[in-house]
């Protein structure tokens, strides 16, 4: 079980959190301008890197706040947690 450092509550067990998938995916400003393929890319396509991965978590059984974390998908090492809308160590891309 991971130990996740909630930016609001501090380190807590993973079972208090819910996972929210890849971070920094912005909802398109104007969906109508997108082709079906571009919309599908926003909707379904996610990166699946081996290594450091910015992802979203929510402290469901705690403060109920969403935040971002950078987790290494190989070692599970969480190198940073930071608030929504903030830039992580990896930037936003």
């Amino acid at each position: 079980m991971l130990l996740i450092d909630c930016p609001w509550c501090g380190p807590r067990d993973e079972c208090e959190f819910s996972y929210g998938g890849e971070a920094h995916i912005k909802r398109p400003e104007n969906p109508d301008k997108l082709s079906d393929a571009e919309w599908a890319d926003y909707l379904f396509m996610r990166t699946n890197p081996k290594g450091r991965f910015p992802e979203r978590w929510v402290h469901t059984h705690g403060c109920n706040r969403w935040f971002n974390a950078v987790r290494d998908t190989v070692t599970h090492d969480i190198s940073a947690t930071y608030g929504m809308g903030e830039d992580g160590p990896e930037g936003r891309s």
Partner: protein
Amino acid sequence: MKRQRYRMPDGGRIDRSQPLHFTFNDRSYQGYVGDTLASALLANGVAIIGRSFKYHRPRGVFSAGAEEPNALVQLEQGSHTQPNLRATQIELYSGLKAESINCWPSVDFDLWSLIGLFGRIFPAGFYYKTFMTPNLLWPIYERIIRQAAGLGRAPSDPDPDRYENINTHCDILIIGGGPSGLSAALKAGQSGARVILADEQNEFGGALLGSDDEVDGGPALDWVEKTVGELEEMAEVRLLPRTTIFGYYNHNFLTAVERVTDHLGVSDDPLPRQRSWRIRARQVILASGAIERPMVFENNDRPGVMLASAASTYANRYGVCFAKRVVVFTNNDEAYRTALIFKKFGIHVSLVDVRPEFNGDWPRKATAAGVEIIFNSAVTGTRGRRKVKGVNISAFGMDGNLGETRHLSCDLLAVSGGWNPTVHLYSQSGGTLTYDKQRMCLIPEKAGQAVNVVGAAKGTFELERCLKEGAREGARVAKNLDFVGSGSVRSKSKTVLENEQPLQPKWLIPSRKHPEGGPSHFVDLQTDVTVADIALAAREGYDSVEHLKRYTTLGMGTDQGKTANINGISILSGIRGEELPSVGHTTFRPPYTPVTFGALAGRQVGQFLDPLRRTPIHHWHTRAGAVFENVGQWKRPWYYPVLDEDMNDAVVRECRSARKSIGILDASTLGKIEIKGPDAADFLNLIYVNSWNNLEVGRCRYGLMLGEDGMVMDDGVTSRMAEDRFFMTTTTGGAARVYSWLEEWLQTEWPEMEVYLTSVTENWATITLVGPNSRKLLGELTDDINLDLKSFPFMTWREGKVAGVPARVFRVSFTGDLSFEINIPARYAISVWTACMTAGEKYAITPFGTEAMHVLRAEKGYIVVGQETDGTVTPGDLGMERMLSKKKDFIGRRSLARVETLRSDRKQLVGLDTEDPSTVIPIGSQIVATTKKRPPMDMIGYVTSSYYSPNLKRSVALALVKSGRNRHGERVYLPMENGTISALICNPVFFDPEGERLNG
């Protein structure tokens, strides 16, 4: 009652003043406090404990610990029974009852053992190859195989025992209370760090418990006692004996099971039987010791063949010596200890050493003690059918081959092939292992987490070095966490003997009988995997360790191959002609030893498994005799049978009353969310498909919520309470999901919006009055709400008092009839409900449950999200495309313009008019346009809701059918097991299609 004929008159850590009586296979025996079941059985001369998994060969005690592959028993009976427990780890208690497993009719006379005679036809992969075809016969094969091959029986009744879970944090978790673990704990404890020391045995000491070593110039066990005493005095140190750390997970999260009262037997003790620990440790010191490696030779599985360290342990720790003549077979120095221990008890000992003659302290001391040493030789096989009676030994010739066989009689064969560090937890933690060519074993290489290995677990086998390493690491790890304390001087053990001769890497001893010829050279005693099986697997191409494991079942028993894997891998590497490191090893996975489900579940069983939610009116429903239905965690009245009514009668009566006069429904389970803030209306615009800016205060609107994929996710009525305040209702089952959904969007995508969400599901109780008389009844209960049609039109809400209680009344309808949803603070719910029932008596007010509610809404073709929808249904599919706002964006809108969602042959909501009006189609039935004699047929849709409507005196069904809206009037068929149902596709609104009844 039998005398303990192999118990020595004194010595050991058992209490001879406290005898314990127990039964094994229905025979009574006696042992002592401090015994394990295994030691007590050995003391009583019970050689055969069980039968082997596949060949049903007699098997006895092989080890003295967690690695035991053979001596598995079924402990206790009835609901208390536990299968496959290791007799070597069961502490004896008064009245213990155990049985052998996997034998029929008895362990001493097992008919299945005939299989052993035909071993040649039961090689690895036998089942896969033999029982492949025909498929039809597989159930029969399976039954026979399961009876023949197998382990203990699972209990058939619920577990009556109590278990606990406990969570804790510590600075340093030390795993293993042997010499290195204790030294580490002492130093770490002295530093002031918060320390947990866990050991699987009933007392600390580890390997010292079975040895005759010395520490600080006195018996090692005196040192253990002194050290444990000191640790007990330390406020921040927690000692956990009888506790197995069985799993090592991410971020130094470890799980353990503490056997709190197992050693007391079946009792009414208020303490839990076991407690499972979840430990988050900043640092771990792994001092898990080592497991002795067996030798592989012909018939190496007979009762009386035992690991040398186990033989020493039974003698030293338990005062059991069941042999008159002992043969020790070794490739290393370690077994000389065992020889000396038995010699000390005056037993005749021969020591067979595969190494050439050498001069050293061990042989010198052994010879001086009178041990007969036979160098450069090997045990090539054992004799004795039910127990070892003797061994065959051969000397190695100049060419390395074995020469003439000679016989030595003995009744105990102690084998030692060196030691394998217990690296299971290290490997689970993500640490890598490397093959140490000097010590010939797998040792920790690179740690994946904050874990530090000491002692035998690291390949440090000498006591003095273990003490040193433990103390050093204990202090270092504590210091790294900023704990520095003053410690005592480190304990020392002088090395007893020097001139150590290295182990000779020889574990597999061929014999006259070719080791690949049949079941003779056992590698995995628990799963009956032999050298022949490994060779066969390699020949057939299963020559990677992972394939070998799965093809032969090597290491797949309940012991996970603790004594088998390394031998198996080294035999495979021999066959492949490669060095062991390049062959690799299989993955170690939790649990280290089996854990009972009860310990994992803890108190979360029965009513504590999941929260149960009851509405504030629940007790009234119970008294009214309601039958309840589970809706998520909620208990909802399903129907209210009167007298001897069955479900059908009750539902018919409830449906009729609701349409004819008045029905009353407890709708408190509806999800309710208050949405507040200046941007609330804009937020709703994004969440719902329809528009909210223009909704006036006091009005309600039905909203449809989509996922970003355009699929219907939830629906419900939302009302405007004030300019900046809305009251949203959701489906009962969707309440939590919708609330999280709204929060997610607010926090992650639109944080600039000023909107606040509050879940108020449990704050408001909802009582729904349905039917033409509901206005009259409500009028009697309120004097400050004007109920006329004009002042209180459909889809509006009013505030006032109902039965003297402040209420919000919503004129909405889920039945198509005049209806009022009265929301009152939950604590007043029962009084308002009772007031409605009392005042409604003259109208024959009828409480109705969820089943009648479903019938009433299905008559009207109203959908239920999750019943008519399944995550693949768009608003268009439901005929609700007119609700979609064209003036704004909303979640899911863009997806509705995808080619896929625009297809005209999507499944669409329709009604089904059955040819025979009394036929109620089973929900989920598949629909075809044309029938064929037998499946497969082309399916064009399926039934989502189907009921008998007492108001229409006919069945009603809703279905999703391809291009359904263009097919009204078409005939379709529903092929059933017995015959086919015929129906016409029709409008899904069966009752009051003009909606005239809404206003009463």
